[in-house]
């Protein structure tokens, strides 16, 4: 589904990481960890085509990213749900319209998807906040809203960059549980987190691979986690 072949990325002449080869199978769950500044966010951005590798190839859904133009990348991105730590929204639109944005930009009839939207908002516990503007939401609500927006198009892959970074332990557990449920529905999940306790706690619930970026290399963590 997502395949990296000897991928390297340099920024400002400095190599962030190099010679990374990896395959993410459909329905798998991956944690990505590593120290701050190691390149976790950059690595995730490579996975959904927001960045192009400086060497090697990234293939997503059997398509070489280098072969796609900007519109092709945009279409491909609709099959990947992305949750950022800072959860960007359109602050002038109510939450319900923000969640419907992926439908709007892909030309789908939002009115016809009203039931799905309502169900999704109920699933992430935001039914009562449909008309709230994003600046009125708490950190946890924003994270759940970002997750709901990421999956409204029923993507095959969900990429979450530190989704629990700004919330307390209970909310972290709740968000993680939502990601686990999505994984059980067959979605591939890649989640970056520096919270090893959270990763350890989750590994006891599902079969997850832990990837670690450190010293410009990507390795698979084992018992040393």
């Amino acid at each position, binding site marked *: 589904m997502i395949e990296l072949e000897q991928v390297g990325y340099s920024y400002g002449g400095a190599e962030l990481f190099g010679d990374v080869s990896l395959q993410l199978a459909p329905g798998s769950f991956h944690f990505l960890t590593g120290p701050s500044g190691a390149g976790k966010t950059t690595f995730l951005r490579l996975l959904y085509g927001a960045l192009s590798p400086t060497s090697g190839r990234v293939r997503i859904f059997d398509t070489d990213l280098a072969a796609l133009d900007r*519109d092709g990348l*945009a279409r491909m*991105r609709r099959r990947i749900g992305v949750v950022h730590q800072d959860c*960007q929204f359109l602050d*002038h639109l109510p939450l319900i*319209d923000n969640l419907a944005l992926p439908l709007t*930009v892909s030309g789908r009839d939002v009115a016809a998807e009203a039931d799905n939207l309502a169900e999704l908002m109920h699933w992430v516990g935001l039914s009562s906040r449909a008309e709230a503007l994003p600046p009125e939401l708490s950190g946890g609500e924003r994270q759940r809203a970002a997750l709901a927006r990421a999956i409204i198009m029923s993507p095959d892959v969900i990429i979450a960059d530190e989704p629990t970074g700004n919330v307390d332990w209970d909310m972290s557990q709740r968000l993680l549980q939502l990601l686990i449920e999505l994984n059980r529905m067959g979605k591939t999940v890649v989640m970056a987190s520096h919270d090893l306790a959270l990763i350890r706690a989750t590994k006891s619930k599902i079969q997850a691979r832990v990837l670690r970026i450190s010293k410009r290399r990507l390795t698979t963590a084992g018992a040393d986690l």
Partner: protein
Amino acid sequence: MKVTDLRALVLGDAQADRVVPPTGFTARLTLFASGAMAFLAVFAMALSMASGRLATRWSEELARSATVRISAPDDQMAAQTDLTLRLLRQTPGVQSARAFTDEEQAALLLPWFGPDLPIDTLPVPRLIEVIETAEGFDAAGLRLRLQAEVPGAVLDDHTRWRRPLVVAADRLRLLGWISILLIGGAMAAMITLAANSALAANRQVIEVLRLVGAQDGYIARAFVRRFTLRGLIGAAAGVAAGLLGIFFLPSVSDEGGFLTGLGFSGAGWLWPLVIPPLAAVVACLATGFAARRTLRSLS
């Protein structure tokens, strides 16, 4: 721009229209710029059209007439006048020739000398009005004949002072149209700046839209449509104000000369109505250019 993009731009999409925040100083700047430019364009257009009318009138009214002026002693004046008239009537290209009466000459001099001056005591030359046929006469040849046969007669075919006036009016008309082009260019520049500013201010909006899979065409359309509508509305207001200004100018009078002739006549009043659609096209192209450049730079 693809046909589907153009269709989406014209028809619009209520949901897509909402993704760009509706307010901000760029909205007011675009409205003001397009309104002010349209207002100026109306006056430039009025100037250009009035100049055109003036040039045509001067050309048509003066082109087919000439004057022969006879300066001779009193006792020879009548003979020279008769000789000149006979000569003129024999000249190919002359439709008619007629000597001004004493009363007509006095009327011509009245504005300068007043009613009380005894003009008949002054050595006033006799004037002969010459009307040409459509083909016209050979002015150089006629001058030579007059010089030879009536030494006191001088032909003035008005060319000397008519041509610079017509040229000046034509130039004024050209300047009017150049002004309209410059106004369009300045408006495009201002809207491009406003669009650039709006795109920069809405960088987060663009990032969010890209994150959820929006294509560049969709993002650009959202901005282009917004700015096109602002350009259209601002220009419509500017044109309305400009037309009112022209409408309330003093009506045409001989005393006012060119100034009171500034304006539109007949179907000419419809010409300013093309300004708002043109302003919308300028706004559309300027914003499209700015949006494409910004989106490329954000890749």
